[in-house]
């Protein structure tokens, strides 16, 4: 039999060589088919890609376009994009447009940090913002401080408020400041004194548990037990059975993904009639659409939310009503749907950046100087009214003083109904 040397000194019969070549050709054809399929799918997305021009304020926006937190990231991206378009349509800032460059964190802390680094090194952005889940956004703090670039993080936990460093800012809400609202509701409106925490295993959940343990007692609520669930959990009945067997008079579901919404459904299907309060994610429209009838079962779910989604039910003299109405209607005109809390968060990140750029008028000829100018401007943000709060920052406090605008809502006849505001 004819033997030939091939590759790394292997001896193969000529028939085997033909077989191997045939295999390689087949493999190439398989890969070609796969690449063709992916290109066809990606083509519409590529059409949305931002073009780069040197005369714009380039901002990197990192969010979950895929992965377990995409129900938060994608709406936030839409909200931010709308505000940027509005600013640009009105002539931009100092004659320049804001250019948002979007990156997908894929629900991973590593991907978030890598995306931030790519925005800084490759796309040379002026600032970077992370509109993703709390735990993911924390991975960006070190990146922006190491690279000396202003960075906004969407962290829902107060555990990092004093760890933001010189370059990271947090123009959003910490749970330590809005937890009192649902606790006051349980104590004052329902006359309850005990509660069980059902906590997501995540950075957001960790902060929630920490501050519930710290603060609940001050507001007359005894947290009698904590149970935990994975963000991707599909069955929470064991944890709910534990809560049902405890002395808890109410349940506080703390989560940012679909499992928290499933917990509401499963608790009602189990016949648990304890009042449930939840963090904002459970009020996401897709969950309300899926589980609305469970949300409305008595006692109906009470959920933290923003003034934006409830603007029609705010008193006519509420100072935020007009701002919320305008954004609500613009968003509907642009996307054909109404905005929710995550759209508001994305929008307010861009508003915060725009305010900083307006005051800093950064010198784009020198990126290092421009980034420093913008950082300094962020530190002097004063009484900036955004959708989730009115923010004032100082050089020593990059979370700052926040006048909160969270509200509590419940669900009736397929709609959200305002229950309580921070002012009540």
């Amino acid at each position: 039999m004819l033997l030939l040397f091939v590759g790394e000194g292997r001896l193969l019969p000529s028939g085997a060589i033909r077989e191997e070549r045939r295999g390689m050709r087949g493999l190439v054809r398989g890969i070609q088919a796969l690449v063709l399929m992916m290109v066809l799918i990606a083509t519409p997305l590529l059409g949305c890609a931002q073009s780069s021009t040197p005369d714009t304020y380039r901002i990197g926006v990192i969010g979950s376009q895929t992965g377990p937190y995409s129900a938060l990231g994608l709406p936030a991206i839409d909200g931010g994009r709308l505000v940027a378009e509005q600013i640009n349509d009105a002539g931009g800032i100092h004659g320049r447009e804001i250019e948002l460059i979007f990156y997908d964190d894929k629900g991973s802390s590593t991907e978030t940090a890598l995306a931030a680094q790519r925005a800084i090194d490759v796309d040379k952005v002026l600032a970077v913002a992370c509109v993703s889940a709390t735990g993911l956004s924390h991975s960006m703090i070190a990146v922006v401080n190491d690279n000396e670039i202003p960075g906004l993080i969407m962290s829902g936990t107060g555990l990092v408020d004093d760890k933001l460093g010189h370059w990271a800012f947090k123009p959003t809400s910490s749970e330590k400041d809005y937890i009192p609202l649902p606790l006051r509701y349980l104590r004052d409106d329902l006359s309850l004194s005990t509660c069980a925490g059902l906590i997501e295993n995540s950075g957001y959940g960790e902060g929630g548990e920490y501050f519930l343990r710290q603060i609940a007692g001050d507001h007359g609520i005894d947290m009698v037990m904590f149970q935990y669930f994975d963000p991707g959990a599909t069955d929470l009945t064991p944890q709910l059975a534990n809560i049902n067997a405890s002395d808890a008079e109410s349940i506080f579901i703390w989560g940012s993904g679909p499992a928290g919404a499933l917990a509401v459904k499963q608790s009602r299907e189990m016949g648990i009639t304890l009042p449930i309060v939840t963090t904002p994610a459970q009020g996401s429209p897709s969950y309300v659409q899926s589980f609305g009838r469970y949300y409305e079962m008595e006692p109906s779910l009470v959920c933290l939310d923003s003034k934006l989604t409830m603007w029609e039910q705010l008193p006519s003299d509420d100072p935020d009503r007009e701002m919320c109405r305008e954004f609500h209607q613009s968003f509907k005109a642009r996307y054909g749907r109404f905005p929710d809390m995550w759209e508001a968060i994305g929008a307010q990140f861009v508003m915060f950046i725009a305010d900083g750029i307006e005051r800093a008028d950064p010198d784009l000829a020198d990126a290092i100087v421009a980034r420093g100018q913008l950082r300094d401007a962020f530190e002097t943000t004063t009484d900036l009214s955004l959708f989730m709060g009115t923010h004032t920052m100082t050089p020593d406090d990059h979370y700052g003083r926040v006048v909160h605008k969270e509200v509590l809502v419940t669900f009736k006849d397929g709609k959200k109904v305002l229950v309580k505001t921070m002012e009540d």
Partner: protein
Amino acid sequence: MEFSTVLQSLLSGLTLGCIYAALGLGLYVVYGVTRVLNLAQGEFVMLGGMITVSLSAFGVPLFPAILLAVAIVSLTGAILYRFIIFPARHASGSTLAFLTVGFAFAVKGLTLLVWGWEYRTLTSFLGSPSIHLWGATIFGQAPWVVGMTILMVAGLYYFFGRTMLGRALRACADEPLGAKTIGISPARMGLLAFVIAAALGAVAGATITPLTMTAYNVGIPLTIKGLLAAFVGGMHRAEGVILGGLLLGLTEALSAGLMPSGYHDAIALSILLVVFLARPRGLLPAHANIED
């Protein structure tokens, strides 16, 4: 520890176990016939759920909607085999597995474009109510999930053991060259295996959606659970996959109910890791044939 909590954990584990077993069975069929680890199996499950939800929303009655979903997803399975796996059939097993990962990402991207990112669900089949038993609850959909898994296993045993087509598939799995000699086309049998796996995935997707919800991004986590079930139980035998699925589900549910800490998933996976290290070929290692 309350009795009701233990019972609830056991019921939850049984239901989860059946879900994982159903996921693993799709992997088992493809692997058994073609020796390809199809890492796109979870996408078949996701597509089955999404299509059924959408058709139901358009007013198609539930069971016709499931049948249509099965047909569409089976076609997707055929496309995966004919245009991606078959041309590369002489490549190594790991290369073929990577190709299925690529296909999974393509399906996921396409689903995002078509359906968006929202989570979707279905009501329990035929409005089945929850059953309350000694302080625990059996969700209305849970018996459907258990029944689906039993039917899948029974159907596979009948198909591979009693039908000519099933025997031809087994012949291809056992002795491809010999099967070819007597006129059985390995290419057609490979195609059939992928179509069967896709159909099983679609049925599983439609059946579990009322319990778990579905969205464009649930496929890969589902594949991982199915793989765990198959690896722990033994990839070469259907009963191994069932055993692995039940073990995985029960471990998860019992650790969540009886060990209330933030580490219950880590505890569950550690237990499975120990099992896997002790029996690296699975709890039930291979016999000669797919149906043994």
